[in-house]
């Protein structure tokens, strides 16, 4: 006997159920199909090509009126169901009731709307159905600015579509990188780069506070109070199973409608399928598992045994030109091993995650041709032990060679600047080599490349090798570490010339062999990035050694030392009292006067740091950076204020210098001293910068040392005024910041580039001005007390949890 089957929702899941049913037994059911949307089933996932203009709606319809008619499906489209009565087995449509023998709930999901002020303004659109898509197409016809909230699959497809239609699009994403659920940071970086190339602005770690506007959306307000103008706001932050009907009908509902492996709900005559369900604690947001569910449900209704099993799914993004693939579990869990492959010249990144002898996850960008092969290995749990070495090269790999270490240089565009001093680009050098300049000396002579400060020598040599091949004998330069083939100098140069502004950019564009560097290269990369791009890149504490991350010096017993700044060595009774009080309050075992004219509190517990800082802050004391590769101390002598020999205000100049320079990060630590006369009581002649005051003005010396090496300063310049002494000092330190290798003190760096080169650069008044301005720009971000900032986050210094109180079962 024919049974009455009612289906709520004409979406992708129920569409597949009906197809399977009518294929197997067209007479088994008399079907009534409700849909809230005023149309039947279409291929929802193809809305993105419709949005971008690559397809028309008609092309994505899967079941048209003729199909429903031919299969005797009674369609009630544009009519939402408003209630289910399981006792009398009746469904309430908006236009009237229908009785059922069997009922399927296939209501899909509803877009999640973040509960911020302004969310209901006209001009705020979600992305779920054809009406949303048409609304976006219409809005984009007027041009203007669009803000898409959410950098996941849906948000990015919306962003790309709107950009394609000529809007100026910004994506606001809460997490650190795009599509964080499907991609790791490296692939997220490449995706971002490709989207940025299309003119889409990406804002990560950005949280939406409100949508502003008078009668319609006009701007998005971010946490931190920045506003982004917007004529259109698309909210694509996630979806929620549409469970309201099921809930009201008294069915078991957790996050989704609870079903068995046969798709049966807690009521034996009601079934559910698609995004609205929850099975085994899981929700579903991609079509592949929904199709499996649909098949199982059709079989259940036809009384042939079947059961749904959850399988891995792979993700792709439907944005032309952004080729990505992600499958399996690539992040969580212990006992895992990574295989990483990067080809900067092609913008390719691949990472495989292996557990034991099985592949468990794969993330790829740029070249995803092997994606399905890897996906199969994951699904089949194939033993990959024998192909481990070559696995990453894919199924086609038979004995080929891994990437060329020189590929990063080979991949540079012809106009990439190699020699910054003389503005020589790659093509000029390559041309010179092709015209017979076959060694470094000849290249220097013909092009001037590497003829000045010499830091690009390594790159020029690599160009010689790339151009001449085996004819050129590469001198052995030491790469930074095992993660790459570049020297520090090469890396610095490439960060500048390629405008690399994030760690991920460095890892990818320069072919790093590890996921995110190591303790040797990452602190260096972090410094180079912040020195060259002070506004675009922010210091990453996780790429710093403990002292600089904790803003205190770690001691051999794991406690810390705390050294507040004493500007120019000057203090007063109030400061000393605050230090004494802190020493009492935190049981500081040792209080010592340092060699740098200030006081060290040694033996403070890590947990106490934020509190002792906060106490010292209250007395006006700030961090002395006794731990940083940055400005340490400016020692002074008493000078004209008190000393009978003093010629200038050495104390005053020292304090001014310390106040200008404090907080800055430098390649290694930087110490200064100012002495009031050539008797030199402040020991200025063995400092990184040491100034000796004389009757006629100031003698500025640089590149001294008094640690592992002892070396007298060399005279940079004699100047008549204090202002000039400051200008030259700041310019010298900025030049050092821009050029030196990480962990070279100034005396080592000057020995490499030559004092003559330093003098040459600095004697150009315009260049001096630029250096001072660049330093100031960086200081606009870094000249602040890290103690005050950290004192506000005291919790982070405490253990996360205490299990000693927890009893074992």
């Amino acid at each position: 006997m024919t049974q009455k089957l009612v289906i709520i929702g004409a979406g992708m899941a129920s569409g597949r159920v009906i197809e399977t049913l009518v294929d197997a037994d067209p007479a088994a059911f008399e079907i009534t199909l409700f849909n809230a949307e005023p149309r039947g089933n279409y291929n929802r996932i193809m809305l993105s090509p419709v949005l971008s203009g690559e397809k028309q709606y008609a092309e994505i319809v899967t079941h048209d009126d003729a199909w429903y008619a031919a299969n005797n499906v009674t369609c009630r489209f544009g009519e939402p169901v408003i209630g289910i009565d399981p006792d009398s087995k009746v469904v309430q449509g908006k236009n009237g009731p229908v009785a059922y023998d069997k009922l399927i709930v296939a209501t899909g999901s509803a877009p999640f709307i973040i509960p911020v002020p302004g969310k209901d303004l006209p001009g705020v659109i979600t992305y779920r159905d054809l009406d949303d898509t048409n609304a976006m197409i219409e809005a984009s016809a007027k041009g203007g600015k669009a803000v898409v909230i959410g950098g996941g699959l849906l948000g990015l497809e919306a962003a790309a579509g709107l950009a394609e239609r000529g809007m100026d699009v910004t994506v606001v994403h809460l997490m650190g990188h795009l599509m964080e659920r499907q991609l790791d940071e490296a692939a997220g970086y490449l995706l971002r780069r490709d989207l940025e190339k299309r003119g889409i602005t990406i804002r990560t770690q950005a949280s939406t506070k409100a949508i502003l506007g008078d009668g319609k959306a006009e701007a998005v307000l971010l946490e931190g109070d920045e506003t982004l103008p917007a004529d259109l706001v698309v909210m694509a932050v996630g979806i929620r199973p549409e469970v309201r009907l099921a809930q009201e009908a008294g069915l078991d509902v957790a996050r989704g409608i609870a079903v068995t492996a046969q798709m049966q709900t807690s009521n034996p005559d009601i079934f559910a399928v698609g995004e609205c369900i929850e099975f085994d604690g899981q929700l579903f947001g991609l079509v592949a598992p929904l199709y499996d569910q649909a098949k199982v449900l059709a079989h259940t209704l036809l009384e042939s045994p079947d059961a749904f099993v959850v399988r891995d799914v792979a993700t792709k993004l439907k944005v032309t030109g952004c080729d990505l693939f992600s499958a399996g579990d690539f992040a969580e869990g212990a006992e895992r091993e990574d295989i990483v492959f990067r080809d900067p010249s092609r913008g390719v990144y691949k990472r495989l995650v292996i557990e034991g002898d099985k592949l468990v996850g794969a993330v790829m960008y740029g070249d995803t041709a092997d994606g399905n092969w890897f996906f199969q290995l994951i699904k089949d749990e194939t033993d990959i032990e024998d192909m481990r070495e070559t696995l990453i090269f894919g199924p086609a790999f038979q004995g080929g060679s891994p990437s060329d270490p020189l590929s990063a240089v080979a991949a540079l565009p012809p106009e990439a600047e190699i020699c910054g001093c003389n503005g020589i680009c790659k093509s000029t050098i390559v041309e010179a080599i092709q015209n017979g300049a076959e060694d470094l000396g000849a290249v220097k002579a013909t092009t001037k490349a590497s003829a000045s400060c010499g830091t690009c020598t390594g790159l020029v040599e690599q160009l010689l090798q790339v151009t001449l091949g085996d004819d050129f004998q590469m001198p052995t330069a030491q790469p930074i570490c095992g993660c790459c083939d570049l020297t520090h100098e090469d890396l610095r140069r490439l960060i500048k010339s390629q405008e690399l502004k994030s760690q991920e950019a460095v890892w990818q564009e320069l072919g790093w062999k590890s996921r995110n560097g190591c303790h040797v290269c990452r602190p260096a990369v972090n410094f180079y990035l912040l020195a060259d791009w002070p506004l675009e890149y922010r210091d990453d504490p996780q790429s710093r050694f403990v002292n600089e991350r904790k803003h205190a010096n770690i001691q051999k017993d794991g406690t810390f030392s705390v050294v507040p700044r004493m500007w120019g060595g000057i203090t007063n009774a109030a400061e000393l009292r605050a230090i004494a009080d802190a020493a009492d309050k935190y049981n500081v075992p040792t209080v010592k006067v340092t060699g740098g004219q200030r006081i060290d509190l040694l033996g403070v517990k890590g947990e106490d740091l934020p509190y002792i800082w906060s106490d010292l802050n209250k007395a006006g004391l700030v961090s002395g950076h006794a731990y940083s590769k940055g400005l340490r101390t400016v020692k002074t002598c008493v000078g004209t204020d008190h000393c009978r020999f003093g010629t200038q205000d050495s104390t005053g100049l020292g304090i001014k210098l310390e106040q200008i320079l404090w907080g800055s990060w430098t390649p290694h630590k930087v110490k200064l001293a100012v002495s009031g006369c050539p008797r030199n009581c402040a020991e200025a002649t063995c400092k990184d910068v040491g100034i000796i005051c004389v009757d006629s003005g100031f003698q500025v010396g640089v590149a001294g040392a008094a640690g592992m090496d002892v070396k007298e300063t060399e005279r940079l310049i004699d100047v008549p005024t204090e202002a000039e002494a400051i200008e030259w000092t700041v310019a010298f330190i900025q030049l050092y910041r821009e050029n030196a290798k990480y962990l070279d003190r100034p005396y080592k760096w000057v020995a490499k580039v030559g004092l003559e080169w330093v003098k040459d650069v600095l004697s150009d008044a315009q260049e001096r001005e630029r250096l001072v301005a660049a330093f100031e720009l960086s200081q606009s971000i870094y000249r602040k007390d890290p103690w005050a900032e950290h004192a506000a986050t005291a919790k982070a210094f405490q253990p996360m949890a205490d299990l000693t109180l927890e009893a074992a079962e």
Partner: protein
Amino acid sequence: MSWIDVGSIEEIPLRGARKVKTALGCVALFRTADAEVFAATDRCPHKGGPLSEGIVHGQSVTCPLHNWIFDLNTGQAQGETATIATFPVRVEAGRILIDGSQLTARSAA
């Protein structure tokens, strides 16, 4: 195993670490990627360096005192015959769960 919720993954900085006090001494929780967490003893076998203060890179940590490098999967020190104890840990819906059976105080029996 008895899984204990010790906090949200967001409390550990990306490529950073936090510690948890246990009956066995401090245990360090390392977060290497958005949702990847490892647990190991916080004491370096060399001279007791606090590993939670080290630099986290790939799936390894470098001790802050003298730069020994430990693989967080196995606890093995690179180039040294030393290991650190590692402990089972899971991340579920953004919460970090650690296996308490080894780490909680034995009840006096």
